[in-house]
């Protein structure tokens, strides 16, 4: 047998193109699934801060004459692949999922202000030069070995193992400057604990909070976003994230105080020129008569000038809910202040669009 060259065009066997074709097919399927994930899916399965999501889809198989019980779904026939009744699992990267959601819901990228102009500088050692401070011993030794072999000073077959270290064989690690814009964002979640947040109401609110959480993490990078949770009844105070849905109280409610608290914290604890502020209020919209007026004043005077976005969402409002009605007179077409009403699961997408969509 003689030695042959590789008779194929490619020197590496791979299925990249086919995987690409399959991924395209799946992306089409996934974008159809996004609405399902947002309205019916369990968003708590999103994973923690940017981890991958395991997605299950109906398996696809080419339909053919086979024995067996009727599978669920059945072959879609024609040009399309059929469904085998089983499940296929994929790990979908968090960023990819958010990208698909943004595409599907036509959400624009969030405007990043403040420290975007300030660059985060870091150094990586990717290049190597003849002059420097940090000697790359491995590279230097390789060159020394090559030179010594070439000059004949290193001849192991003769028992000569002399290595000559020349200056020009030295290789140093050189730092390379990498600049990345640095952003910072703070999100204030405000919840009304005087209304009965349990059952479906709680689920709706959780779902929306989870989405906002993920959406801002995706836009700014998980480490650059601080999430703070506030609740109020007749008083307002900050709680731990896990307590946001737990604390409950019955009685009178004043929402303006939580807006006031958040506005003060934003100014006192952060530098408004370098921080992107986001605030979201969730409540049933039942307020004391003059509360809405106070809220409008606080929002207009203290929050709108420094906040990137402020959302007020009424979750399953009752007949006596009038928060949105009152403040919508002032903020109906506002770019910063957005109002939403979440009555059923299916409204989730609409509310998300209202909170984050473009408004001209």
């Amino acid at each position, binding site marked *: 047998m003689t030695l042959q060259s590789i008779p194929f065009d490619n020197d590496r066997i*791979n299925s990249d193109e*086919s995987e690409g074709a399959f*991924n395209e097919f799946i992306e089409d399927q996934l974008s159809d699934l996004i609405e399902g994930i947002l309205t019916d899916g369990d968003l708590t399965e999103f994973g923690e801060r940017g981890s991958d999501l395991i997605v299950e889809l109906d398996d696809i198989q*080419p339909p053919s*004459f086979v024995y067996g019980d009727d599978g669920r779904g059945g072959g879609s026939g024609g040009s399309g*692949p059929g469904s085998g009744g089983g499940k296929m699992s994929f790990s979908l990267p968090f960023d990819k999922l958010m990208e698909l959601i943004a595409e599907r819901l036509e959400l624009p990228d969030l405007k990043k202000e403040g420290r975007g102009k300030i660059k985060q500088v870091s150094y990586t050692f990717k290049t190597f030069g003849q002059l420097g401070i940090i000697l790359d011993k491995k590279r230097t030794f390789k060159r020394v070995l090559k030179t010594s072999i070439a000059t004949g000073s290193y001849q192991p077959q003769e028992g000569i193992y002399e290595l000559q270290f020349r200056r020009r064989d030295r290789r140093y690690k050189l730092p390379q400057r990498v600049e990345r814009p640095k952003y910072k964002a703070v999100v204030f979640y405000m919840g009304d604990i005087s209304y009965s947040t349990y059952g479906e109401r709680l689920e709706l609110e959780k779902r929306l909070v989870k989405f906002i959480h993920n959406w801002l993490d995706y836009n700014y990078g998980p480490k650059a976003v601080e999430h703070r949770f506030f609740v109020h009844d007749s008083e307002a105070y900050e709680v731990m994230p896990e307590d946001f849905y737990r604390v409950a109280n019955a009685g009178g409610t004043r929402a303006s105080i939580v807006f006031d608290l958040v506005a003060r914290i934003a100014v006192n604890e952060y530098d408004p020129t370098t921080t992107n502020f986001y605030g979201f209020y969730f409540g049933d919209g039942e307020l004391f008569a003059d509360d809405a007026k106070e809220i409008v004043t606080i929002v207009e005077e203290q929050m709108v000038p420094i906040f990137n976005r402020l959302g007020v969402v009424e979750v399953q409002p009752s007949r006596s809910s009038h928060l949105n009605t009152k403040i919508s007179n002032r903020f109906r077409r506002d770019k910063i202040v957005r109002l939403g009403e979440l009555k059923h699961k299916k409204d989730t997408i609409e509310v998300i669009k209202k909170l984050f969509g473009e408004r001209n």
Partner: protein
Amino acid sequence: MRMIHTDEVLNHLKDRVLYFGEEFGMTLPEVRFYILDGLEFASLLEKRVYPASPSNIWEGKRMVSKKYRISEGMESSLYYEVVQTGNPSYAYLNNTNSPMMQASVMAHVLGHCEFSELNVLRDSNPDRTEFVMFLVKKVNLGRHQMGEKSFISYWNAAESALPMMAPNSQYNVGRAVESDTVTGTGTKKRVEEAPVTPSFYTPLSSTLDALLRPRNDANPYEREMKTKLRQETLSRRGFRLRCPCQDVFAFLRYYAPTTNAERSVLDYLYTIHAPSDFVVRTQIMNEGWAMYWEKKIMLELFKERACTGIIDYSKVFSGVCYPRPYYMRNPYHLGFHMWCHVEELYRDGKVSLDYHEEKDQKAKDAWKRESGTQPIDAMRHLVRTVTDYEYLRRFLTPELIHQFHLNRVPQRDVARLGISKRDVIQEDRYWVWLNPEPIKKEMLKFFTHFYRPRIYVIDADFEDGGLLLFHRDDGRRLKANWIQPTLKNLNMIWKGGISLVSKNTLYGYTGGRYREMRIPEVDFEVVVDRMRDGKKPLVLD
């Protein structure tokens, strides 16, 4: 992917393995070895052992899920051996294996190569891999000609017909279709109808003669009409169905109206999938043959200390040849032990008329006579003449079934499989042994249907140019909600009406419309008879 000569150790081992292969008198084609990494190996398997393939979502799906399974630890990326037989043969080694494992893989590959060269089904094919590479280029060209969307639709439609491929069936396209042109590689030699010679004297007592050559008593007028009809069909359509054709894919490949681009898709799919029929029909003999030679060559390598690790090799060998119950079919185990048994039979001269006619059991037990032929020659003769079915039918006995533990079932599966106590002949804490008598019959049954529905083309002019398929009944029903999409896909290839008869229902797909119709049940034998008589196999009232 790199060639084997880039690795000095493996190259040396390859030379030694080839040397011993030739020493043992093996009939070997040129074998080219390549070294791949784990992912390349996985990809190669998904490409059906050809290093390139046109992109398609099915390969992508299998690869994505394989990568997922490997990353989740559900599947190991270590594979044993992969070889594309033919002349030359291409064998691929996994770079993660140790040199000893690589040597055993190379020896195993030689076994497969020789089997492919010698076997009765004529599997060996000159330049198979190169031909597929050529077809890949043609398909990629076809993709541009057809446009991406139609190409994908056509490819996916053709996937539906893939299980209906039977190049080695007695009803393959060469035997079933009479054509006015030579149809290509898939067609066997045309069977010419022998001219009827008048028999002047027929002895009344010759039963055999009467059975084999029945006198043609048909009306001369009818005979004349039949010949006329046949000639007309041939001249009009270019082909005529002589009997049912089980190789539905090949039929579509040759006789469906296609553009060049569509034809290239069908050609490619048929060429890469057709050898699986050979594999399934000869798997036990083939894997056994490879294991037999692997062991022989490896023992020589260990003897001359070309490689070390005989204990590790023994562990791997016994792992591969671990007995499994008959319904799980471990071809390595059964094949290897069967070949060893057959070798012993020939060595002791037990495959002879004398041995069979010997009535004294003691003499039979102590039988040891030179038969005049070398056992290995006799074994090679078997490879040249029979497939698994005949091999098992001739040599597998109930005693062997018991000896090979083919009748051994784990205790935990007894209840699940509904095994009755009456069938159990022996048991211990972990296993039960079943009565081996009916097992051989069960094993042979596999070769009639391979656990797949048997579908035949029985009419290519059904209801004005439609294709009529027939599901040969074996007591089970087809998956009902896949019938319509499958017919729709076939309709796209045939570009005309498609119908399927299964039990007492006629399923049809024509012009975008699907229908189901109750009809009287028809036996396969009746269909064959009607076709032989030149009649329509199915006529609706």
